[in-house]
């Protein structure tokens, strides 16, 4: 029989390791989706806290990082916060971010992402930051794998259209 205290410690260590490995990717995915750094941080931290609260369940989830991102984006966010987020995407950056001088992202990339429909942005975020394959992305979004491919293809084409002039001048990486 295993000692319950030892199990508890293992669980904590297990979660802490998961958190350390997953937090930046999850934050970036949420940030790319919501377009508001401060909000993304709040949502992501809360989602990780919820993951810890239900770690027994989440640790067995086939894609716990996707669980965190999904939970972050589905976390109860009152209407005005969501509105603020939408406005931020439509009109520019989160004013709080500007005030804090946290606009470290490339303006062109942000602008290109902003121009994508929400679904395409989601697919791109999951692909880039969680490195999810098509099947897992499809399951996470509740859409068909073919739809994921179509969204990704359109999103990439749109990004290329917006970013190509700059990348032509300066080779990518």
């Amino acid at each position, binding site marked *: 029989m295993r000692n319950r205290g030892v199990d508890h410690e293992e669980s904590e260590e297990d979660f802490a390791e998961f958190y350390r490995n997953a937090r930046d990717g999850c934050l970036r995915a949420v940030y790319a989706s919501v377009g508001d750094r401060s909000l993304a941080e709040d949502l992501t931290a809360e989602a990780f806290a919820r993951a810890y609260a239900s770690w027994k*369940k989440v640790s067995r989830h086939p894609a716990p990082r996707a669980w965190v991102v999904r939970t972050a984006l589905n976390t109860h966010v009152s209407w005005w916060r969501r509105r603020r987020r939408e406005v931020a995407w439509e009109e520019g950056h989160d004013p709080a971010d500007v005030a804090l001088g946290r606009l470290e992202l490339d303006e062109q990339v942000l602008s290109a992402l902003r121009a994508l429909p929400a679904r395409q942005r989601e697919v791109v975020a999951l692909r880039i930051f969680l490195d999810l394959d098509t099947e897992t992305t499809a399951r996470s979004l509740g859409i068909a794998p073919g739809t994921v491919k179509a969204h990704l293809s359109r999103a990439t084409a749109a990004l290329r259209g917006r970013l190509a002039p700059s990348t032509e001048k300066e080779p990518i990486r």
Partner: protein
Amino acid sequence: MIDQENAGADEEMLALVGDAFYGVHLEQDAADVMARGRTLRRRKRAMPALGALGILTLSASVALALPASSGGNAKSLAYNGAVVNVDNAAFSVHTDAKTGQITMTFRQFYDESELKQVLAEAGINAVFQDTSVPSPVITSALSGFPVNPCTWTGVQRLDSSGVLGEPREVNGTIVITLNPAKMPRGSVLGFEYLTYRTAFGGRDGNYGSTDVVVPALLSGEPTGCVLKSPN
């Protein structure tokens, strides 16, 4: 060959976008996150009914219980359409006597009939739509989760600036201000009480459902509110 080249170009493009986020880090310590998680876990244990039934159901039970235990609503009404002051467990409506501005505080969403009546007493027509979004819709809306999944039909949605103020959160409630004097003649306030299932809400999880309120200024009495299809 061309497909391979395209795939390679796509990957480069995605890598470029990913690189732009390289400096984005979540600074919060694991210990802080776990401390918050423990709080959530304690709450979950304290309220075992919350998980499967969802927040809305819990809210309803609280809303039904509190007025009875507190001796009912506290009301101060002037029926001239100018001043309304009502406090109960589920909501508050207060009129600023100087400005005429109305402040609505939403605590729980369970029975809109009383709020509808209170607003009517202030000369404001309001309609309410309870929307329970099935999980496929939510599942398909990763980042946007239904912002306003139902579309009011038979009316036009009007510009609400100057009429509906910027909603605020105060101690877990949603506060919306309203300037009834600026409501166009014949216009109607639409409130969508939206309950939706969260992504991985299991029967034992506490993410089973959550709720939000989405107000709108409408040109008249709508014929309904239609849910958008998932895709």
